[in-house]
């Protein structure tokens, strides 16, 4: 089987669309609500989760035949927590500004359901390379949704994108107002719901 065989490409691409971790598997919703008030943390969180889920997938995949079945969830958790701690320590030492910006998100990665979900559902049954692709795919799939949600929330709540003002002053003079409601986590849920709706309307096979 080639490195970029059809199956492997599907492993990587499916989570970006028809098997998206957030909109189809409905995992990682908690952090999708928490970090999407602005685009920048959403981007950074998406990027960090991608790295961690890919690495954790590879490690668990390598260990998969040795892991005792009864404590497999604990083993997965330990691997994830160790990775996250090491990444966080390295950031503190070599990229202090980034680590200050990330603050709680690094810790939040441990609790991200996508990690446990992929480790349990994929890495425990597949080889390291496939697991790596699956991790990357799911990480990117998660990041895409986060960025889309953050785009709407930041634009409508503050009139900015990545911190830069995009809605011109003249709009405000005409009576346009920022919508403070978009800052609230429930609005992220509504946007995610909207994305799920649009996706299922387009892909009838996703409907039950």
């Amino acid at each position: 089987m080639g490195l970029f065989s059809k199956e492997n490409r599907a492993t990587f691409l499916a989570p970006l669309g028809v098997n998206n971790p957030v909109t189809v598997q409905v995992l990682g919703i908690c952090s999708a609500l928490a970090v999407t008030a602005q685009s920048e943390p959403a981007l950074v969180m998406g990027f960090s989760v991608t790295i961690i889920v890919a690495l954790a997938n590879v490690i668990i995949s390598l260990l998969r035949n040795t892991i005792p079945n009864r404590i497999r969830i604990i083993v997965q958790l330990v691997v994830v927590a160790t990775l996250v701690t090491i990444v966080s320590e390295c950031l503190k030492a070599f990229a202090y500004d980034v680590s200050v910006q990330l603050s709680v998100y690094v810790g939040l990665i441990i609790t991200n359901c996508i990690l446990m979900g992929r480790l349990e559902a994929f890495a425990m049954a597949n080889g390291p390379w496939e697991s790596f692709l699956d991790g990357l795919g799911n990480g990117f799939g998660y990041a895409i949704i986060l960025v889309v949600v953050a785009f709407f929330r930041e634009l409508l709540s503050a009139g900015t994108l990545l911190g830069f003002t995009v809605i011109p002053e003249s709009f405000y003079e005409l009576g346009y107002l920022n919508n403070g409601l978009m800052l609230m986590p429930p609005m992220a849920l509504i946007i995610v719901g909207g994305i799920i709706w649009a996706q299922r309307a387009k892909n009838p096979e996703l409907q039950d």
Partner: protein
Amino acid sequence: MNTNSNTYTIIYASVMVIIVAFLLAFVSGALKETQDENVRLDKKKQILTSLNVNYEGEDAAALYDKYVKEELIINYAGDVVEETGAFDLDVKAENDKVLEERNLAVFVCEVDGESKYVLPIRGAGLWGPIWGYIALDADKNTVYGTYFSHQGETPGLGAEIAKPKFSNAFKSKKIKNAAGEFVSIAIVKPGKTDDTKDYVDGISGGTITSQGVDAMLMDGLGQYVNFLNK
């Protein structure tokens, strides 16, 4: 090999824990020094920010040495206890002591020939600690600049206290009333006012964090009341 036997499971778990413990201890030990260095540099940057000094693209440590002239430790009565060491004073530990027994840090700085006092303060936000540095003019009344930060407030809401938009609103506010008594600066809901003292608009959607800043200013600057009245 039977990977489901009790012996295997216990040995597997033990070995895993030992490996992970060594790994984490090694990483933590190896990076400790670099991290501490970063924390100290970051603290210097925070103090420079409260003095409205732009350290972007410059050596923050050198700028700090240029602007900060003295690092005094004072007691509650406002008398100087030690001439040095304020930088390494553990504000959190001091906050846990009885008010009268606390040691307080005062950074005496000089910007454009005028002396400024930078006072570190610490309080509680919604999710964790918040802290700040307040730079006062030589009259120990007018705010020259501020810096606020937090450990884990919600981005877009409470975390907005760390943005220049919030901290700049404090410039030239007074912490004393017309009679010269310490009254702090109030954080009010946008649109509201406070007749008894100077006020700054709080963060919409970050009410608890804003109240935390209000309390932190009251208590934090309140510790210095004898120093401020000297």
